[in-house]
């Protein structure tokens, strides 16, 4: 990254197609140990996802369980004399049913941790036992209606739509502008272009806070604050990361192909569109995916530019929902799941481009 005069990159390496390598443990013991560590790590990585999903399906009552189980258990209740009572699997040691395990309902607590249990089918017969020694009967109970409740508690559909607009219009802007600029920097030889390319690359190092306040003032003067425009319009003016990524790829496409098109009378725009763009599709897809993720997850700029409730994106809406409804963890988790689904789906469908992109750019991710 230090020098500007970078070599055209090699085709991206992914794990699957890689050459035979390297630092590998050959013994079975070593490989088994490695596998165990990897699997254990993967389980740890997945737990927050499971926690999020399971919590999103619990009722407020289920949330009270300590420690919260990953499976949304609910205590099974039975009706005894017109009241719902918790069902227990009890071991009765005395009386007629000695040592037998029965399902009985706890109808009354007594001092000393004792409880009065009755047979739900025959409420007249009761036994008094230590509650701690009995197992509560439970079943899995999920509450998908949490999702509906979360989505209507605050205008999440609206936020979802706003986020989609910002993401996809911005994506169009990034793709158009960055492709044009990358073509300019890869196919023309004016000396001043080199200088401008250095300037372009150096903007990667520039923290966005440095320009933020004047840009905010500018958008305020334009009357754009509290609209989606500040989040969309800058995308149409290219950015250093994506220009760099595309330019590096364009450099690997032989100039002979351009020349052939030129001889056929194609203008530079036609050459770009008909020769370079089709070949650069994998990188263009990568840029599109990265922009999707960036725009979808970005919180900083929406927080700064969007003030009124109706204009928020998912990120800001979710944060505010979290702050306002903090006790309703189940609803917050449901909204979080909704926010997380699109990027996760995208990742599963476009994993290869994704990983290639991370490897090529080594930047985002």
């Amino acid at each position, binding site marked *: 990254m230090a020098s500007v005069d970078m070599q055209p990159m090699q085709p991206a390496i992914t*794990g699957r197609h890689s050459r035979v390598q390297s630092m590998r443990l050959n013994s079975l013991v070593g490989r088994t140990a490695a596998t165990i560590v990897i699997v254990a790590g993967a389980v740890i990585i997945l737990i927050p996802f499971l926690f999020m999903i399971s919590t999103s399906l619990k009722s407020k009552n289920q949330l009270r369980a300590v420690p919260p189980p990953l499976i949304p258990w609910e205590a099974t209740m039975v009706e005894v004399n017109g009241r719902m009572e918790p069902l227990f699997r009890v071991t009765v040691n005395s009386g007629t049913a000695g040592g037998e395990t029965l399902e009985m309902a706890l109808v009354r607590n007594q001092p000393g941790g004792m409880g009065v249990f009755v047979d739900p089918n025959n409420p007249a017969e009761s036994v008094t036992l230590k509650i701690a020694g009995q197992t509560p009967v439970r079943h899995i109970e999920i509450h998908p209606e949490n999702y509906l409740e979360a989505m209507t508690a605050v205008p999440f559909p609206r936020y979802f739509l706003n986020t989609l607009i910002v993401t996809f219009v911005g994506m169009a802007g990034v793709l158009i502008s960055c492709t044009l600029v990358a073509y300019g920097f890869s196919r023309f030889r004016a000396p001043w272009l080199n200088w401008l390319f250095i300037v372009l690359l150096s903007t990667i190092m520039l*923290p966005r806070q440095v320009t933020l306040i*004047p840009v905010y003032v500018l958008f305020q003067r334009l009357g754009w604050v509290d609209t989606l425009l500040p989040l969309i319009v800058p995308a149409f003016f290219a950015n250093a990361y994506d220009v760099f990524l595309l330019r590096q790829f364009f450099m690997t496409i032989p100039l002979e192909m351009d020349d052939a098109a030129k001889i056929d009378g194609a203008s530079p725009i036609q050459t770009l569109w008909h020769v370079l763009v089709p070949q650069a599709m994998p990188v263009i897809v990568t840029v599109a995916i990265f922009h999707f993720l960036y725009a979808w997850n970005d919180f900083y700029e929406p927080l700064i530019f969007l003030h009124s409730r109706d204009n928020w994106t998912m990120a800001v809406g979710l944060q505010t929902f979290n702050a306002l409804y903090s006790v309703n963890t189940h609803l917050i988790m449901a909204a979080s799941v909704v926010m997380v689904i699109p990027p996760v789906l995208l990742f599963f469908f476009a994993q290869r481009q994704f990983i290639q992109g991370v490897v090529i750019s080594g930047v985002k991710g």
Partner: protein
Amino acid sequence: MRQIRRSRLSLAQKEDLWALFFISPWLVGFLIFTAGPMIMSFYFSLTRYNIIDAPIWIGFENYLRAFGRDALFWHSLGVTLYYGSLALPLGLVAGFSLSMLLNQRVPGVSVWRTIYFLPSVIAGVAVAIVWSRIFSPQVGILNPFLERTFGVKGPGWFTDPNWAIPGLVIMSLWGVGGGVIIYLAGLQGIPTTFYDAAKVDGANAWQRFRYVTLPMMTPVIFYTLVLGLIGAFQYFTEVYVISGGSGGPQRATLFYNLYLYQNAFKFNEMGYASALAWVLFLIVLALTLLVFRSSALWVYYEGEVRKR
């Protein structure tokens, strides 16, 4: 002859015009959204400016205030560096070890790689919210786990000033998979012949790691380190979510970038915030240059051998 020359010149000019046309989106954007604002922000940093009234020139007063009188400025720098000093080395070691493991001939590598990468696609608000609940002493699962497995009573994490930063570090480690892919590509780019040669020379596994893998990986390590450092100074979303924008508990998570945000958009101190932004810029620049400079001492680039 003259005519040919002229037409050639105009061809070159035509090329230049095309080049200008193609890069114009960036060039215009650079002037409007980068160069112009940079100048303005430096100007604002020398003023008192509340965005409603015209800026009032106060010279370097904002900078003097930050370095001389503002304890919170130093505090926020400290918070940022404390976090960075934990999160960066741990992330480096964890990510690198993980990529070494994933580089073994383990079954289902692509599945594991996918799982490890998953957290980095959902970075941001949702991640912070989920982790704030995992750490929560009331509804969380971490403290019950610690108590059952190790018999330790877990701290209040994001409600405890001493544990908020370690909590954020743990949260950041969840995302190490993003770096793993870069390391993995680096590992797989090391030519096998190097290892063969080392083996012929009688190097054991540790020596092959120390004298082949590690030197070959330093450019990648170095690169992730630079980005991580810059990232720590830009850290915002997660800490905004877990502290509700306050930097609490008791300012324990008042990161530099959050403090800058508060000045600009909570206290309307646009001038002071601009000065903080420039200090941030200089810090990032200095850190980057420092790492680049020092890189000659410890980073090995493959191309160097062939150069001259």
